[in-house]
């Protein structure tokens, strides 16, 4: 059984008991435990079931590389799936639930998948679920949904209870990893005065060194670590962060760090996670190495673990995975585990060394201490289902004939070590295959390069393929000094401290399958990727089926595609693949390492950008008044505009109809402040305006207004609005709501990059003015009542503007109309907006003044046949499609979009043109509906000949009216078209002129 040991546990505070629950069962651990070590202390070796076959799975590793021990952590608003038990610090009241099983961890119905394993081969998604198509809905999809899915999603109705933040940091040297390599590199760089930031993903400094043993400067590694941390803490130029993972390295020295501030103390003050957005001059990856599993049958039975992990659990957390542990290895390092177990008073009945020649000094020591060591042997098969009960041993060189069975309850395996090269590789660092050590290691000659073309990432220590304390410290010292120099500092010549070298080590032997000639039955039980349930036989099958590229094999078998990104499985899988293909490993190549190194929370990515801060809302000066009236608001750009102002008990539809009628009958008010306002000023402003707009603007007289169209260089209509000439060298351009920034940028682009010799300034003054539409037959009366400006027909004609003091407030009054009514737009300084609005409401009382929203605005403009950007246009429509040729100058040599509008596609008479549409039965056409024609097109789809662009119920005409783009539309007046509804029924509509209301403009001409 797995249990807490009487001695050991350097990270524990054994005096502090911590209680927690696992699948509802109460358990106790110690302060300093991880969830994994606490579960082991409670004899809970099995921690979940596998994704595809629902096989019982136990913890296999002790850190971030763990593929099996994933749990759902917390409840309610703090529930989170797929948390690794090995990196979850235990806290009082922690509640965890295992995943991928139903109805319980011990008894799982999904495990029958295993019985069907031969029906679920590599690429089974592609093979099994292709045909027949009808099976998808009722057979395949329910099956996949029920048995697949890693963990369960949080309840959609809960909201994350925690807060998150982003943190921007700049540093000369960023050291990722706080083991002895990282600490030594930080010392070397820090002593030069360079700004240094050190990130360590675990809650402890020192990495593996305290577990693996050895001496530095004649003292235990732990003493060196304490001294190094103390020296770094004393440096003002050094920042140290624990529980902070280097998540990804990006272009030009940009690095994301992921700090877990309160995962170990939920509900603590402050943010839970912090995303560090670092710009570093130099990045040192001191990320260590990860041990590889060996591929033998039953290597996934709970109790089979990495040799280093077993060692970690004993030394760091004082827990044993079992009483009798068989060690199986292809290298010397695993002997350390055997010795540690022996020191802890545990039984090691057997060490299986796959190498015919066996190990070096450590092996001699193991033998001397009475451990049976068998060389050239391996595991044929692990006995047991939910727990290891023994191993069957065989010759490594054979096919798996069982020589002997040895009872045990744990297996420690070691297939060698892989440097953690992820961060080195994220931004293009290249790797070399080291055949002696059987690993990919960074090629310093092909490092990631920055904006200046110089390398900006260096790996050191085990992450660089250096093993042994002396080599690691030396490598790290050099890396730190080099990084300091590269950022303009003088690192000095201080060497690395001297460490005790381990005795002679025998070389590792590559073992990619155990035994070497394992038959298919064994290979089907030899797991490569625990999390995605990929076996040796799957990769071999993929290769035989022609998946020769490692990237294709990965996708076909899903090897390495789980949340652990194949930290344990990639090299083993690659080796199996290259063996089948008969080519060396480096030729097969690796898959791409992608950030983040381990999954980071969505909350950390969002940071503060949620709720009201996700996208700040722009408010007009009378926004509060609208809200106080219970206006129904709609987003328009970043603004919120009233859609309508419903009275108590009134529907939105009724409110809109009332607002239109009240405006047409007497007086309506519109908050038009959101319209963009751009000032174009300078000696060359006139010629510039002529380039920006399709019509002539340079000849607009001071005091007058003109409606203008603006196109892109592609010829498409992008914005429209009324332009007023304010003075000899000044034009004021109104843009659509939300269009101001885009149009401003469009102007600046041409001004700066095409006509930079023209003398013009453009200023966006949208927020400097509040602007109100005063609309309806009584609009002049109400403004005259406010007093101060002569607004008679003679003094201010249609399409003119004037300035003056209205009701004591400085105003600019435009006599323009978007409704067909007598109408004014009054602009006042933003600071006076609310005051002027109040005066309008007060003075308008006697006329039954009615504020109206965007929908009434839309209906009135449609009744008058005015187009709306975004309704009649969609980025593929040119002004000529909309019958706006009158607003396109024929005299001008050039304007933006003119050349494009002469292209054959733009002049094609088959382009759909704007018309009005009236339903035969008076109903409202569905928005976006298509008019169908006869027959089908080349894709077998019904031929279409037009579409609805705007559609409303008109209270003025008391019927549905619409605008649409129709093939040869203007030539087909009176023709009736068929518009299918979504339910398949047809609405018929007649093609008519699109100006319904006051075609001759008599209403506004008063």
């Amino acid at each position, binding site marked *: 059984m797995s249990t807490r040991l009487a001695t050991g546990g350097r990270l524990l505070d054994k005096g502090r008991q911590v209680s927690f629950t696992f699948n509802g069962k109460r358990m106790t651990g110690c302060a300093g435990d991880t969830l994994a070590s606490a579960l082991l202390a409670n004899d809970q070796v099995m921690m979940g079931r596998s994704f595809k076959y629902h096989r019982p799975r136990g913890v296999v590793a002790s850190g971030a590389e763990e593929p099996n021990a994933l749990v759902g952590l917390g409840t309610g608003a703090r529930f989170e799936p797929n948390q690794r038990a090995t990196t979850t610090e235990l806290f009082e009241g922690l509640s965890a639930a295992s995943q991928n099983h139903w109805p319980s961890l011990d008894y799982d119905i999904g495990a029958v998948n295993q019985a069907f394993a031969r029906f679920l081969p590599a690429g089974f998604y592609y093979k099994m679920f292709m045909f027949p198509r009808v099976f998808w809905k009722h057979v395949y999809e329910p099956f996949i949904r029920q048995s697949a899915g890693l963990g369960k999603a949080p309840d959609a109705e809960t909201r994350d209870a925690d807060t998150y933040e982003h943190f921007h940091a700049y540093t000369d040297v960023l050291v990722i990893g706080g083991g002895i390599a990282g600490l030594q590199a930080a010392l070397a760089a820090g002593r030069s005065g360079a700004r240094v930031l050190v990130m360590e993903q675990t809650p402890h400094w020192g990495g593996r060194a305290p577990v693996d043993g050895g001496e530095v400067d004649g003292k235990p590694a732990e003493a060196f670590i304490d001294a190094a941390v103390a020296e770094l803490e004393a440096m003002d130029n050094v920042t140290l962060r624990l529980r902070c993972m280097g998540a990804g390295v*990006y*272009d*030009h*020295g*940009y690095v994301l760090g992921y700090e877990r501030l309160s995962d170990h103390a939920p509900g603590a003050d402050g943010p839970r996670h912090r995303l560090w957005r670092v*710009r570093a001059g130099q990045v040192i990856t001191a990320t260590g190495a990860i041990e590889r599993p060996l591929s033998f049958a039953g290597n996934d039975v709970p109790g089979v673990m990495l040799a280093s992990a077993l060692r970690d659990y004993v030394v760091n957390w004082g827990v044993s995975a079992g009483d009798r542990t068989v060690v199986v290895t292809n290298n010397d390092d695993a002997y350390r585990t055997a010795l540690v177990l022996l020191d802890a008073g545990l039984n090691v009945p057997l060490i299986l060394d796959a190498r015919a020649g066996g190990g070096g000094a450590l092996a001699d020591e193991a033998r001397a201490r009475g451990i049976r060591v068998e060389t050239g042997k391996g595991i044929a098969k692990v006995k047991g289902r939910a727990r290891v009960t023994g191993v069957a041993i065989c010759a490594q060189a054979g096919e798996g004939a069982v020589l002997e069975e040895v009872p045990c309850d744990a297996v420690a395996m070691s297939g060698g070590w892989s440097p953690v090269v992820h961060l080195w590789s994220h931004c*293009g660092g290249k790797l070399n295959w080291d055949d002696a050590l059987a690993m990919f290691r960074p090629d310093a000659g092909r490092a990631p*390069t*920055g*904006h*200046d*073309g110089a390398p900006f990432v260096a790996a050191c220590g085990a992450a660089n393929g250096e093993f042994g304390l002396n080599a690691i410290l030396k490598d790290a010292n050099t890396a730190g000094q080099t990084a300091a120099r590269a950022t303009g500092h003088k690192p000095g010549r201080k060497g690395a401290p001297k460490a005790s070298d381990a005795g002679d080590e025998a070389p590792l032997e590559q073992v990619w399958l155990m035994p070497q000639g394992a038959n298919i039955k064994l290979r089907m039980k030899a797991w490569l990727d625990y999390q995605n349930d990929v076996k040796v036989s799957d990769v071999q099958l993929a290769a035989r089926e022609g998946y020769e590229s490692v990237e294709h094999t990965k996708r076909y078998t899903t090897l390495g595609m789980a949340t652990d990104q194949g930290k344990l499985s990639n090299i083993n899988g690659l080796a199996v693949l290259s063996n089948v293909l008969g080519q060396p490993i480096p030729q097969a190549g690796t898959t791409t390492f992608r950030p983040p190194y381990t999954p980071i929370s969505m909350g950390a990515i969002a940071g503060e950008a949620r709720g009201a801060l996700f996208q700040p809302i722009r408010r007009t000066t009378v926004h509060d008044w609208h809200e106080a009236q219970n206006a129904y608001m709609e987003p328009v750009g970043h603004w919120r505009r009233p859609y309508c102002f419903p009275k108590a008990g009134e529907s939105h539809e009724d409110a809109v109809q009332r607002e239109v009628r009240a405006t047409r009958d007497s007086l309506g008010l519109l908050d038009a402040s959101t319209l963009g306002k751009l000032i174009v000023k300078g000696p060359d402003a006139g010629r510039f305006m002529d380039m920006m707009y399709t019509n002539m603007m340079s000849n607009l007289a001071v005091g007058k207004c003109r409606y203008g169209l603006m196109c892109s*260089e*592609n010829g498409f209509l992008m914005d429209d609005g009324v332009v007023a000439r304010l003075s000899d060298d000044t034009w004021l351009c109104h843009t659509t709501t939300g269009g101001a920034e885009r149009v401003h*940028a469009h102007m*600046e*682009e041409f001004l*700066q*990059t*095409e006509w*930079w010799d023209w003398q013009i300034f453009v200023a966006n003054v949208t927020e400097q003015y509040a602007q109100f539409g005063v609309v309806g037959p009584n609009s002049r009366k109400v403004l005259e009542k406010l007093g101060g400006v002569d607004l008679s027909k003679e003094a201010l004609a249609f399409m003119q503007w004037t300035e003056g003091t209205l009701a004591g407030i400085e105003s600019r009054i435009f006599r323009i109309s978007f409704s067909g009514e007598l109408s004014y737009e009054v602009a006042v300084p933003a600071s006076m907006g609310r005051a002027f609005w109040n005066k309008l409401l007060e003075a308008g009382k006697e006329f039954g003044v009615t504020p109206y929203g965007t929908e009434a605005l839309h209906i009135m403009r449609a009744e008058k046949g005015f187009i709306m950007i975004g309704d009649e246009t969609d980025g593929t429509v040119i002004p000529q499609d909309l019958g706006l040729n009158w607003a396109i100058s024929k005299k001008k*040599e*050039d304007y933006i979009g*003119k*050349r*494009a509008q*002469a*292209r*054959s596609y733009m002049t094609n008479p088959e382009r759909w043109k704007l018309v009005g549409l009236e339903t035969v039965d008076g109903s409202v056409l569905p928005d976006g509906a298509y008019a169908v024609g006869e027959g089908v097109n080349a894709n077998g789809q019904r031929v279409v000949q037009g579409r609805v662009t705007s559609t409303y119920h008109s209270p003025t005409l008391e019927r549905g009216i619409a605008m649409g783009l129709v093939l040869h539309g203007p030539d087909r007046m009176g023709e009736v078209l068929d518009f299918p509804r979504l339910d398949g029924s047809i609405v018929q509509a007649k093609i008519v002129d699109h100006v319904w209301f006051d075609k001759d403009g008599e209403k506004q001409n008063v």
Partner: protein
Amino acid sequence: MLILHCPYCGVMADETELHGGGEAHLTRHGPGSSDEDFHDYLFAKENPRGVHFERWRHVQGCGKWFHAARDTATLEVFGTYPAQTTEPPKAIRKAITAKRPGWTWRGFSDPAK
């Protein structure tokens, strides 16, 4: 995430402050131009692996457009310069030659040639 030097306000600007504007040194073709010239102006853009000239706007900073000469494969930046020019300055072209001898891009190359 790129970092580019804004030649106007002088800051090393993060890519989040910048807005990419595609290929630099385009010649605008307006009315009277041939269909082919106009088509190429709008649509036929360079997409090299290696030396490239691009337009960027310091949109969250000083608002100015500038040009950047960089390597699209390694992301090395050879230099940035104001957009108010029809060709890359000699100093920029020399800087590119120092790193990528024999480079050419559209009609531009080493100033010594």
